[in-house]
């Protein structure tokens, strides 16, 4: 029989107990699994949102050589921001995708306008920028820099609590994601339509967007929350599994979020619901997790927010365990307004 990894390593200087500690305690140190700019945004928010003292204005600007670029403008070294080191309030900070080490400079005055002008004066106004406003716990992201002030996304970040992640928290982030970005998604958030036609990858698009939104929303949690995407279990493929660091020790499984896209007709929507319910129920049981949520994204014309018709005649055990939410997605802001501008709550 072939030698296992453990056997191969048993003859080496590997400290097996230490490797085990990494697995049980450090898993939440894996970097967010996104492209560089999304990773930068999540890490920048993480650097500031968990801190009790981040009540002022912090501006993070993406740079591929932060200190080299900042030094001529009077920026100085700031280290280990992800561990809560360094003063970030009322600062502009140049950093790369991990927003851990960087270069910082204090704002001359504490106004957003003045700080944005300072960026332009340093020719840094064309970089992906995150403006954190501690007073309202909001992160505004300018993907193409503050010079393009019309192109931005705003994210509300939850308070820096020490609490356990709950099903209600997950539903809250689903509401926020819907109200802010998904009710009538632009191509920048989730590309669901091309030339009026639904794309086949709509489910992946929504999943990608939600992963980012969940990572941002919970970035303020004192006990880090991570999303494991597309995990394969004995029960099949789970869409998003949430883990959170325990009050003591390492990260633990918190819950599972199943996503389904409804494209009609009714019979196949019902089938998708049956599948989502059964997956949520089985993953939760299989992985012994506290909760399971099924989010249905309705892309029908017209869409609906009422899960009741889809739940009729479904397995009662599944319905009892899995919380189901249905979100109507509109293909344009006009369609959304014409439908009475529904908001998720």
């Amino acid at each position, binding site marked *: 029989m072939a030698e296992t*990894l*453990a056997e*191969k*390593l048993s003859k*080496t*200087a*590997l*400290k097996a107990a*230490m*490797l*085990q*500690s*990494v*697995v*049980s305690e*450090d*898993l939440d*140190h*894996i*970097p967010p*699994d996104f492209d560089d700019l999304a990773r930068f945004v999540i890490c920048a928010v993480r650097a500031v949102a968990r801190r009790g003292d981040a009540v002022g204005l912090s501006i993070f600007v993406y740079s*591929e*050589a*932060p*200190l*080299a670029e900042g030094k001529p403008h009077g920026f100085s*070294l700031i*280290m*280990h921001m*992800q*561990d809560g080191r360094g003063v970030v309030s009322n600062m502009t900070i140049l*950093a*790369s*995708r*991990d927003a*851990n*080490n*960087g*270069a910082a400079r204090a704002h001359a005055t504490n106004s957003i306008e003045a700080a944005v002008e300072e960026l332009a004066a340093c020719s840094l106004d064309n970089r992906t920028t995150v403006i954190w406003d501690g007073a309202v716990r909001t992160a505004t992201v300018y993907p193409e820099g503050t010079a393009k002030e019309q192109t931005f996304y705003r994210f509300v970040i939850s308070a820096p609590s020490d609490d356990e992640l709950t099903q209600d928290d997950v539903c809250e982030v689903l509401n926020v994601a819907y109200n802010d970005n998904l009710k009538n998604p632009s191509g920048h958030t989730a590309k669901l339509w091309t030339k009026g036609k639904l794309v086949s990858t709509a489910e992946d698009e929504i999943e990608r967007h939600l992963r980012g939104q969940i990572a941002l929303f919970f970035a303020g949690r004192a006990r880090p929350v991570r999303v*494991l995407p597309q*995990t*394969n*279990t*004995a029960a099949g493929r*789970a869409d998003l*599994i949430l*883990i959170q660091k325990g009050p003591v020790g390492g990260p633990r*499984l918190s819950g599972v979020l199943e996503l389904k896209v409804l494209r009609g007709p009714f019979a196949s929507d019902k089938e998708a619901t049956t599948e989502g319910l059964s997956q949520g129920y089985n993953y939760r049981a*299989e*992985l012994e997790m506290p909760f399971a949520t099924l989010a249905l994204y309705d892309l029908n014309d017209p869409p609906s927010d009422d899960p009741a018709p889809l739940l009729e005649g479904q397995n009662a055990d599944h319905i009892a365990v899995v919380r189901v939410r249905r979100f109507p997605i509109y293909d344009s802001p006009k369609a959304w307004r014409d439908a009475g501008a529904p908001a998720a709550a």
Partner: protein
Amino acid sequence: VIDPNGLQNWLKGPGVHIRRRIRLLMLLDSADYAVISPVSTARLHAFAYLADVLSPIYNLTTLSGVVLKRRIGPYFPELQWDLDRIVGLGLADVTNLRQVVEVSHAYLVASFNLRRKGAEPILDVVYRDESFLMLRDFFRELAGALGAVPEDDLDATAQADVTWMTGHRGTVIDYGEWRASNYSELSAERIEELARERFSRTGLKLGPAAKVNLYVRYLRRAAHG
């Protein structure tokens, strides 16, 4: 001011030479990216060493494949030669120059960082090649993971590497010829295996970035005992 002929000559040469040189510029560039520069001689060699042993995680081939186990840490004579040339060409700045004595030999050590004005045009050309972008991503990941290590622990962290620790002092460690003797990579894979066991049946899969970061977390722990 860079002497263009000198630069051309330095960048020329058979495949492995040019790869080695580009790799060195990229290592210094990623040190800037993670804000761990200027980087000392010892750390640059340790960084180059880890970048070599861990490259299979990104499905990249190792470059040197062998290293002499010296007391003070990994050291590649070719890398040092190229580093000196980079300084001579005006592509890197030297600070904190000092002499150290090991057994009967004296070495000059210093700290280095890229002189970006000269190096950036070269790197711009290099990064147009997709295969180098993958390498850049890996170097940035490793530099970022090392950049999270407290300054005082960094040297011990780099030397806690499993392949390095397993080798005998004064001998050549060969990790390139046989994948089976690259214990660093095997340890990183073992982390994934253990993670899968811990999160019973989630079918958790760790990406290469996660593996590099978690392996460096292991090195930090191992450096402390």
